[in-house]
């Protein structure tokens, strides 16, 4: 019943506001008409300059460069870390005395060393 009343109330609000919304939409459509002409001129200008009809924004070109460099660096780091002693750590060949001994609730637990620990050790 509450949902029904809410829907009814919303409908009333939408109907009452619809003339204002329509006026707003019409004004925006008129503004967009000007925008369309401006964009068309811009696109034609770019086309006759020998570029693509929709030339990329300089910010996009810069972002693509940065992201591709980051991606390459990420892949390199991944390759380095895969080739590092991590594999031997995974195979449980790390030094037991180097492990951290945590005492919580009087129950000793072992935590495995991280890559950073291994790097620091070296």
């Amino acid at each position, binding site marked *: 019943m509450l949902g*029904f009343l*809410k*829907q*009814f*109330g*919303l*409908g*009333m*609000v*939408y*109907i009452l506001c619809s003339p204002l919304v329509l006026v707003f*939409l019409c004004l*925006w*459509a008129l503004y*967009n008409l000007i*925008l*369309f002409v*401006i*964009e*068309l001129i811009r*696109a034609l200008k770019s086309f006759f300059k020998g570029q693509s009809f*929709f030339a990329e*924004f300089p*910010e*996009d070109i*810069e*972002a*693509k460069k*940065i*992201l591709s460099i*980051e991606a390459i660096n*990420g892949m390199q*780091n*991944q390759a380095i*870390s*895969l080739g590092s002693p*991590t594999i031997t*750590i995974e195979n449980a060949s790390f030094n037991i005395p180097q492990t951290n001994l945590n005492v919580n609730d009087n129950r000793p637990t072992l*935590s*495995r*060393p*991280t*890559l*950073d620990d291994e790097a620091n050790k070296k």
Partner: protein
Amino acid sequence: MSLLMGENDKRIFIAFLMLFILVFIIAGYIGLIIERVMKRQAQRVETLMHDVVAAKVVTTERAFRRLAIKKSNRLFFKQSIIGFLILIFAAIIYLIHSAITKNWMPNLFDYKKEGFTTILFLWNFDDPSIYVNFFGMRIIGAWPPLLNTPHWEATAWASYIIFPCLVVGGVWYLIATQAHIARTFRIHKLSKTIFNIPNNENNIVKGTNDNSNNNITNLNA
């Protein structure tokens, strides 16, 4: 004036009330659908701005807004160009037809000779016999007589092309406009919040920030 209603009046009153409620409920649902569609249209801003925010090319509210509006405008141009081409096509047909017939003001709604409505069913709502008086109000009380049955008219060929083109092109343009409005609101909202959220909670940056190295180094997990 007596306020007592007869049986017939009561029935009409109940039907009128139900129709009234139904109209509001339907309007509510239409509004809800439009709202959801606009939300979906607004999500395009995230796609447009993802790379520049993730690469930290854009770092201020103002720069974000400026670039996002530029991109949104271009997207509007791309989305509305087909609608415009359809409208231009309709205008060309109108010019050709008017040049041939020398009639520069064709009536698109004429149901006898040259309008699009020749191929539609039409009822005569001007007939006074179909209306009844209800509490001083003049409301429709009977099905109106048929005015026109669908038939082809050779002289209305231009209307058969121009009218659908105008409707399709116009609706296309209005939908693109609606999407542009939705994106503009989203841009203003995002520009105020995007640089205040930590990267790992930021939907725009999420994904590219997901460094696979973390999974390798985090052996404690």
